[in-house]
């Protein structure tokens, strides 16, 4: 479904991604695992055309997203959702407007239909309708994360990208987020791409894992094939090798 071929990216002459190749399949949860500063966020943002790589191609359903005309890409983008590390909820909109923005702008839906979709999404993530009139700043970090996931769900996506979904959350909220990722895969067969440094998260949700070390894929394969030596090399040796 998504093919990544030879992605290179540098910032100020410093290489961040050095020839990434990977295949992401439908209805599969792929976790890109690695410590901080290895290029995980750059990679996941490249997958949705937020960052343009210096070289390489990203194909979604066989189409290179960087050569597609914007209009065609927007159509493709409508079937993808992104959950940001810091949630990126619009702070000038309340939760209801945050959730309904995409539908209001892109879907021909009545006000009642939008309201009903918003309420179902907020219930799906385990929040009550009372949060709909609140602004993001009035919510806890865990609640914001769940609202961000609800916003993603409302796009009715085929692929959901998560950038460090458990960062900064307490244990209870981490559990809820993990449960939501699992439910989305089971109930709507969403393809998930998760970048994280969180090994327990990887162990609980991943079908396939890519280990990213200093801008290169060190290993890619089923979660069961990951060994503790690999994780040791990735984290202990990886950090020791950092300048």
């Amino acid at each position, binding site marked *: 479904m998504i093919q990544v071929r030879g992605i290179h990216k540098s910032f100020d002459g410093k290489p961040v991604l050095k020839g990434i190749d990977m295949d992401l399949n439908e209805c599969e949860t792929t976790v890109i695992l690695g410590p901080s500063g290895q290029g995980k966020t750059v990679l996941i*943002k490249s997958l*949705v*055309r*937020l960052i343009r790589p210096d070289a390489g191609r990203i194909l979604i359903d066989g189409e290179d997203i960087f050569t597609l005309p914007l209009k065609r890409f*927007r159509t493709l*983008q*409508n079937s*993808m*959702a*992104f959950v*940001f*590390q*810091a949630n*990126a*909820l*619009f*702070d*000038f909109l309340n939760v209801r407007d945050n959730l309904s*923005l*995409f539908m*209001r*702008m*892109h879907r021909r839906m009545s006000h009642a239909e939008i309201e009903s979709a918003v309420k179902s999404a907020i219930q799906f993530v385990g929040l009550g309708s009372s949060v709909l009139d609140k602004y993001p700043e009035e919510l806890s970090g865990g609640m914001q994360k769940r609202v961000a996931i609800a916003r993603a769900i409302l*796009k009715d996506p085929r692929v959901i990208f998560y950038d460090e979904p458990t960062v900064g959350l307490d244990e209870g909220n981490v559990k809820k987020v993990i449960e939501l990722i699992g439910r989305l895969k089971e109930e709507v067969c969403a393809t998930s791409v998760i970048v994280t440094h969180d090994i327990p998260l990887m162990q609980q949700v991943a079908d396939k894992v890519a280990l990213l070390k200093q801008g290169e894929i060190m290993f890619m394969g089923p979660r069961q094939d990951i060994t503790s030596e690999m994780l040791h090399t990735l984290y202990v040796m990886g950090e020791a090798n950092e300048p």
Partner: protein
Amino acid sequence: MIEKLGFRVIGFFRTVWEVFLLFLNTLKAFPSVWFYRRQILDQLHVFSVNTLPIAAVIAVFVGLGAMIQGTYQSSALVPRTFTINVIFKSTILELCPIVLSLVLAGKLGASLAAEIGSMKISEQIDALQTLSLDPIGFLILPRIFAGLIMLPVITIFANFIALFTVFFVATVMTQWVSAPEFISGMQLNFRVFELYFGNIIKPAVFGFWIALIGSYFGMKTHGGALGVGKTSTNAVVVSAILIVLFDYYLGAFLL
């Protein structure tokens, strides 16, 4: 030293080029005006309702200041209708538009730069893109639209208040001139174009710069809260310089 100067010159021209590109991209987003109508209405509200009280206060004192200066500097030999004419023209052509625009560059320019800047650093602009929304159409087009429309509206309102203040003080409170003298003073050498110039052309140009420069610096923000602070300061300083510069050139070419 020379190297530093060279970098600054290159940086300056790069900024000018980037502002120009942002303007072109905003023009490209113009056909989406109807699509972003709700954001445009929101910005029209921000640019108007929230600034009218400030505009009213400024207008009253601009009018009073112009009157004090006019009466102080005119000699006894100058007919009072001439003095009223000078006060009238200096107020609507120069003082109200420029003082108001400079204050609004501080208020609106800084706030929109900070707003877009904090959206940038908290990935909200990326989030817009992932929702298939064009950040330029969603954020910048409405602000430029609001600047172009609302600055003239606010200036018309302010000019009216300033002139009414001058009229009230000159004819009722101090009885420096009579009402008919005041009216005939305003009519001296009157050209309708002056009304368009002071009330529409100048404020529209100033409003455009306030919105474009604020948006540009907002989009260029990086580096957390400190970056947002720098962004707001830069937006205000650059908008103020452009307002003063265009104030001169518009007068030189159009009057």
